[in-house]
C-alpha cells in the first residue's frame, strides 16, 4: 500500500530523515518507534505532503505521491491524524467531521461514514453540537481519528494517539484502532511513544534513531528484541 524509498528530509539546515525506507502492506498496522526527535513525526509529514523530501520517493499503491501537495494527497486516500490532534477548536464536533470529508462529493457516502464514526465513537454523537475545544482529551483524540476516517482513507497515519491521555482512555482508543483495522482492513501507520501498546496492535515495526531506520522486524520479534526491550519497553 505504502512504500518509502531512500527518503531524506530536512527542516532548513537540520536534517530530520536520512535514507529512510519502509513498507506498509495493505490491511496491516505498522508502527514507528523511536525516541523524541528520531524522525517519526517527520516521516508522517513527508507521507502526507507537509514536508517535502530532498531525496527519495513515496509510493501509494504503486503511484508516486512525493511531489503532490497535501490537499492532493488527502484526495488520493491518505488521512493524517497529526500529533496534538490539531482540531478546529472553535468549530463544532459535527463541523470538524464534515471538514474531514472536504474532498468528497458523494453526499450519501459521507452521511454513511458519519454514522460509522458515531458507531465507533458514540460519545461524539452526544457531543455533536459542542465546540471541539470543550471536549476532554480522550474525546478530542477520538474526534481527530473520526475526522481522519471521514475522508474514507486507504491509509491512516496516526501520530501519538496516546499523547497526554490517561492509560484507560489510551487503551480504549487502541481497542477502537484495532477494531477499525480488523473490520475494515484499513491500513494504519502508527507513531507511538508507548511501544508496548503499539507493538500489541501492530504486525510490523520500524525503529528510528536520529533520522535513520536502525531496526525493522515483525512486532513479535521486536517485543523479544533485547535492544528494544531495554530502550523502549523498559524491562
Amino acid at each position, binding site marked *: 500500500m505504502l512504500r518509502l524509498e531512500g527518503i531524506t528530509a530536512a527542516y532548513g539546515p537540520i536534517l530530520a530523515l536520512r535514507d529512510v525506507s519502509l513498507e506498509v502492506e495493505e490491511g496491516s498496522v505498522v508502527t514507528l518507534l523511536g525516541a523524541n526527535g528520531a524522525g517519526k513525526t517527520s516521516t508522517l509529514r513527508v507521507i502526507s505532503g507537509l514536508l517535502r523530501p530532498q531525496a527519495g520517493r513515496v509510493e501509494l499503491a504503486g503511484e508516486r505521491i512525493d511531489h503532490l501537495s497535501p490537499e492532493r494527497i488527502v484526495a488520493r486516500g491518505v488521512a493524517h491524524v497529526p500529533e496534538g490532534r*490539531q482540531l478546529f477548536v472553535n468549530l463544532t464536533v459535527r463541523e470538524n467531521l464534515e471538514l474531514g470529508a472536504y474532498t468528497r462529493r458523494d453526499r450519501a457516502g459521507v452521511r454513511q461514514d458519519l454514522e460509522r464514526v458515531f458507531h465507533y465513537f458514540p460519545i461524539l454523537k452526544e457531543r455533536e453540537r459542542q465546540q471541539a475545544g470543550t471536549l476532554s482529551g480522550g474525546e478530542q483524540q477520538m474526534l481527530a481519528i473520526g475526522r481522519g476516517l471521514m475522508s474514507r482513507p486507504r491509509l491512516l497515519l496516526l501520530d501519538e494517539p496516546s499523547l497526554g491521555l490517561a492509560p484507560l482512555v489510551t487503551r480504549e482508543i487502541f481497542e477502537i484502532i484495532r477494531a477499525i483495522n480488523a473490520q475494515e482492513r484499513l491500513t494504519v501507520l502508527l507513531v507511538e511513544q508507548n511501544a508496548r501498546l503499539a507493538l500489541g496492535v501492530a504486525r510490523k515495526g520500524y525503529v528510528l534513531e536520529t533520522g535513520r531506520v536502525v531496526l525493522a522486524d515483525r512486532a513479535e520479534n521486536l517485543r523479544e528484541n533485547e535492544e528494544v526491550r531495554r530502550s523502549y519497553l523498559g524491562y
Partner: protein
Amino acid sequence: MFQWLGQLFLAPPPWENPQLFGEQVVAGLATGSVYALVALAIVLIYRSTDIVNFAQGEMAMFTTFAMWSLHLAGVNTWVLIVLAALLGLALGAVVERVVIRPVEGKPELSVIVVTLGLFVVLNSVATWVWAQGVLPKTFPTPLSLLESVNLGFARVSQHHVAVLAIGVAVMVALAALFNYTRLGLAMRATAQNPTAARLMGINVGNMLTLGWALSAGLGGLAGALIAPITFLHPAFMLSVLLYAFAAAVLGGLNSVPGAVVGGFAIGVVENLLGTYTPDWLGAEMKLPLTLLLLVLVLLVRPTGIFGTQAVRRV
C-alpha cells in the same frame, strides 16, 4: 424641568424633538452599516492572517475613484455600486497574490509594513490620476440625498435608506455564506488552523486569496455607498476606516457578529454626538468622543463585546 439640561445640547434634546432623534438614529444606522461592512473587511483578514490591513481604506478609495471615472463615462449609478464591489473583489485577489503572498509566513510586522507600503502607493497613484481640479468630487447616488422617505417616526433620505438596506442584505448573504456553505466552513477552518485545513484537503492559498477578495469587495461596496455622503477625495476613507476600526475593536477583532453590532453602534453614537454635542465642544469633537467611548468599553471588556479567547484544553 429639563430646561437646564436642554441647554447643554446643540440641537433640541430628544424629549423636545423626538422626530430629530429618530432621524439621527436611522441615519446613524445607515452610516453604521457602512462602518460594519468595512469592519467586517478588517475582521475577515484579521481572523485569517492575524494582521490588520492598513491599506483597507485606500483600496476602497481607489475603487471608488475608478467608479467615479466610470460615472463620468456615463455608466448607470446602480451598476456602479455592483461594479465597485466586483472591482474590489478583483483588487483584493490581486493584492493577496502579488503583494501579500511573498511575505506569507514572515513575521507579522513584515506583513503590516507591506500593507502600509500599499497604503502609500495607492494613495499616491490615486492623487496623481484623479485628484486634479476641484476637490472633493461629488459622487453620484442612484437615489436622492434630498428626497426623503417617511418612516412614520422619522423622515430619512432615500440614499440613507438604500445604504442601510444594501448593507443589511450583504451582511445576511455573508452570514449565509459562512454558516451554511461548504466554502464558508472551509474558510473558517483555514482561519483557525491552516495546517489542519491542508490536511483536510483544503487549498489554503485559495482560501486566503478569497478572504482578501471578499474583504476588498466589502470595502469597495462601502466606498461607493458612503462617497455620496462624505464626498470623494484621496483621504475620504480615512475617517470611515477609523470608525470601522473602532467598530471592529468594539465588537472584538475576531468576531464577525461583533463587527456588525460594533459598526451599527459606532454609526449611531457618531451621529448622535454630531447632532447633540454642545456648542462649546463643537460637532468636530465627535470622532475623539466616539473613540473615548470605545476606550471606556475596552477598559471593562478588553476583548471587545463579542471577542473571545479560544476555548482550549491543553
